[in-house]
């Protein structure tokens, strides 16, 4: 039932708005709205009950194992939320004077310093509001760098074929062409193909390391040297930073610019699809181009630096300073972990992934890169099961939901057929991993004995499989009401 169907003309949640309708004295009739929008007319209890019940139709980290590869669905500490919502922080206006901003700005300055330290970069801007905006900012800085040198012939950004779809899309938004580089069967970038692709037209390369294949790019030193020798710059997509946090720093690998997904590695909430935060870090030569605002400290006071103090900036990416409340949550998380805790993130996410991969292989499933170490995530291919039993990775995924576990990422990366990208994260206990293996084994048995059980899954959720084709062909994007 939709909220609109609870609606009755004249019903209101009286406590929520001013008691009277003040006259719109200064607004001439011609500017006024003539017909009220049809919003719900419900009581406070009806709204609370409706949305509480909707929440119960979701899987979430707080309620289920959520091994969604490349998304780092780890526990989001509750303190990060409650402290970021303290009065004084949650009600600070973005344009408040410095006299009423030192608490917030000091936290942001410290976060910049923490991110510099864990990434090994020379300077950091917290402005980007999600990973994809971080990518945009990073590539825009690469372009600004080449443009400032009069190097206008560099029109191409290289992207491995295993990359996240945002990489080529971000390159195009910066006016570049994206060119794909193949990956070897070992999971490493094909260096010969890279050599052939590099040239005076190369602006840079976008790499995720560990890659989306769940393995560490072993020749990163060589790649960095080759790209730099060709005059290009290296972009680090921080989607998988969780795997190496505190152990390896992108700056030390030779990257010139990176973004960090705070909603992954720094445990800020995913919120049903956001908000995220995608701070960018750069080496010295790209520092002038960082997006504004930046937070500066002169030993006495903290203050924001904008276009005025940073004339070479690529500019601003939002009306104010990005997703400040998310940045605060990441800051609180980072302070609770401390330096030692950062390294533990890499250690235990890697331990969990390698353990789970080993258990899956022992249970007869096929690892896509069995000879490689797993990083914080790994891929299995269900191609043998699909061939022998006629059940697809999608069927396994949907049946997992019946077993009260969120499915791993399916059919990504595109290179591996019938794949699951599995990321257990460091905050899951051993028994959750064991339960996952058990469920997968059981589903395989079901596929052997009663395949319709798997192919028709899920059975125990609010809905069964949905008709996506109908959703796209007969577009129903808003409620039309009973009388329309």
């Amino acid at each position, binding site marked *: 039932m939709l909220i609109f169907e609870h609606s009755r003309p004249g019903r*209101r949640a009286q406590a929520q708005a001013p008691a009277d309708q003040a006259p719109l004295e200064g607004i001439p009739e011609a500017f006024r709205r003539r017909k009220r929008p049809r919003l719900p007319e419900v009581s406070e209890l009806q709204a609370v009950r409706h949305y509480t019940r909707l929440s119960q139709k979701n899987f979430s980290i707080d*309620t289920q194992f959520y091994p969604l590869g490349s998304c780092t669905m780890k526990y989001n500490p509750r303190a990060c939320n409650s402290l970021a919502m303290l009065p004084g922080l949650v009600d600070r206006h973005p344009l408040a004077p410095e006299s009423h901003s030192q608490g917030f700005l*000091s936290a942001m300055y410290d976060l910049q310093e923490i991110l510099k330290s864990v990434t090994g970069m020379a300077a950091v801007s917290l402005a980007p509001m999600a990973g994809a905006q971080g990518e945009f900012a990073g590539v825009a800085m690469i372009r600004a760098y080449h443009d400032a040198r009069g190097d206008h012939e560099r029109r191409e950004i290289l992207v491995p074929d295993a990359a996240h779809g945002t990489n080529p899309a971000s390159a195009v938004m910066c006016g570049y*062409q994206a060119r794909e580089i193949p990956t070897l069967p070992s999971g490493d970038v094909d260096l010969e193909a890279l050599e052939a692709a590099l040239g005076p037209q190369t602006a840079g390369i976008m790499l995720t390391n560990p890659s989306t294949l769940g393995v560490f790019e072993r020749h990163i030193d060589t790649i960095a040297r080759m790209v730099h020798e060709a005059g290009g710059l290296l972009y680090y997509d921080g989607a998988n930073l969780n795997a190496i946090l505190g152990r390896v720093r992108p700056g030390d690998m030779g990257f010139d610019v990176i973004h960090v997904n705070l909603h992954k590695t720094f445990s800020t909430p995913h919120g049903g699809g956001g908000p995220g935060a995608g701070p960018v870090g750069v080496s010295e030569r790209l520092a002038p181009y960082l997006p504004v605002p930046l937070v500066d400290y002169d030993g006495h006071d903290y203050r924001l630096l904008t276009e005025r103090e940073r004339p070479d900036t690529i*500019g601003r990416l939002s009306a104010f300073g990005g997703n400040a409340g998310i940045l605060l949550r990441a800051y609180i998380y980072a302070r609770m972990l401390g*330096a030692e805790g950062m390294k533990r993130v890499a250690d235990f996410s890697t331990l969990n992934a390698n353990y789970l991969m080993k258990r899956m292989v022992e249970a007869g499933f096929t690892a896509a890169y069995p000879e490689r170490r797993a990083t914080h995530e790994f891929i299995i291919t269900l191609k043998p099961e699909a061939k022998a039993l006629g059940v697809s990775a999608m069927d396994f995924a949907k049946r997992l939901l019946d077993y009260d576990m*969120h499915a791993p990422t399916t059919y990504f990366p595109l290179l591996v057929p019938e794949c699951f990208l599995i990321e257990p994260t460091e*905050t899951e206990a051993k028994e959750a991993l064991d339960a996952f293996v058990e469920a997968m084994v059981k589903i395989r048995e079901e596929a052997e004995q009663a395949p319709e059980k798997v192919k028709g899954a899920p059975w125990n959720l609010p809905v069964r499989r949905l008709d996506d084709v109908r959703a796209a062909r007969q577009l129903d994007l*808003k409620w039309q009401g009973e009388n329309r």
Partner: protein
Amino acid sequence: MPFIPHTEEEIREMLETIGVSSIDDLFDEIPESLRANTLEGVGPALSEMEITRLMQEKARQDSGGICFIGAGAYDHHVPAAVWQIATRGEFYTAYTPYQAEASQGTLQLLYEYQTMMAELMAMEVSNASLYDGASALAEAVLMAVRANRKSKSKRVLVPRSLHPAYRGTVHTIVRNQGIELVELPFDDTTGQTDLDALETHAGSDFAALVIPQPNFFGVLEPVDQLTDWAHRNGLLAIAVVNPLAMAVLQPPGEWGEKGVDIACGDGQPLGAPLSSGGPYFGFMTCRKQHVRQMPGRIIGRTVDLDGKPGFALTLQAREQHIRRSKATSNICTNQGLMVTAATIHMALLGADGLARVAGACHANLNALVGKLTALDEEIAPRFSGPVFHERVLRLPMEVPQVLRTLAAHNILGGHHLGGDYPELENCLLVCATETRTPDDLEKYAQNLQRVLATRRQGACATMARIDL
């Protein structure tokens, strides 16, 4: 170990299963030279009690000001239920609803949101959010350039009365795609976009016209004329509006003869706390004919295998995870949680509640302007155009200095315009929402009175010296 559940024994068992002797061994594919040593600059771990004390201290430092600043972020009351429900773990810790069957809560909520936002804007379709108002406008500009098949140009008309940070953000995001933003001046008397200046562009090829409502000065733009001008000259009309104001102002879908083509803006006034500028959310609505050019997630209603209604992500062929370099935008993660809050907020307030809030804001601003202009004849509204809940005042003193003095008395007196508009050097943008009380307004007036008195004394002293 904070947030890590492993016991010593489990670690041993797990390493044994893997077949290695230590966790270090799991990193043996990483070249030795790349291993990091210490992380200077991170510091030691804090317990929950310690971090609580630290954050309370930071919060205390920033507390106490009575806010009369608007300029794109507004201090509204948010019903308690909004964030109590939005921060339920099932909403707070879910992700993008790729597994539709396990995400019907989020998906249905987003469908309800799309309906409410389309209603509020009087537009045909809405997406499920973008980052914020400024970046949503940038996406709207890119979308308009793609969607306007009649125009061959990549030029877009942008009024100078639009929020300077919005203009800046749009510039950052679209310039690398060869899109040119052409500025339209404002009328020095009314504060509205100058229609005569607009007319000089008639006959030139532009892809779109951006129309803010209210504009950055709080002034209401002649939206009917602007929309019709755009359509008459082959441009798409892009509205960028305050969604709360649309509860009482004519919505973009009804502007002019045909309504605008795209309406976007910042959803902050619908349930997002000020929170130092974010997270808020960008909204975008459009005519149905342009839906395939729209960026961002879109939710559709469909049926399941048993014919039961359900909700799913749809039109994904527009998006980066399918189309990669040919996607309508690179956006992936959006501002889902803020949309969750906004949906609950709109459901609780309803059309009537939102209109009351809007009315109270308007009345409070008028009361504030009345009090402040009564203090001194040299304090006066700078523009004559009608306003919603913000207004530009001309002061007889240096604005930054006045603001500093007011802040020392915990009055956050508004936003100085001189920084972005040299022509408005002595001008202050003030805002009063429904949360300001008569007592708050009185405090502002008294403190400003005191600043004025100090100035008069100063002036008298100077004159006295001249007399000597």
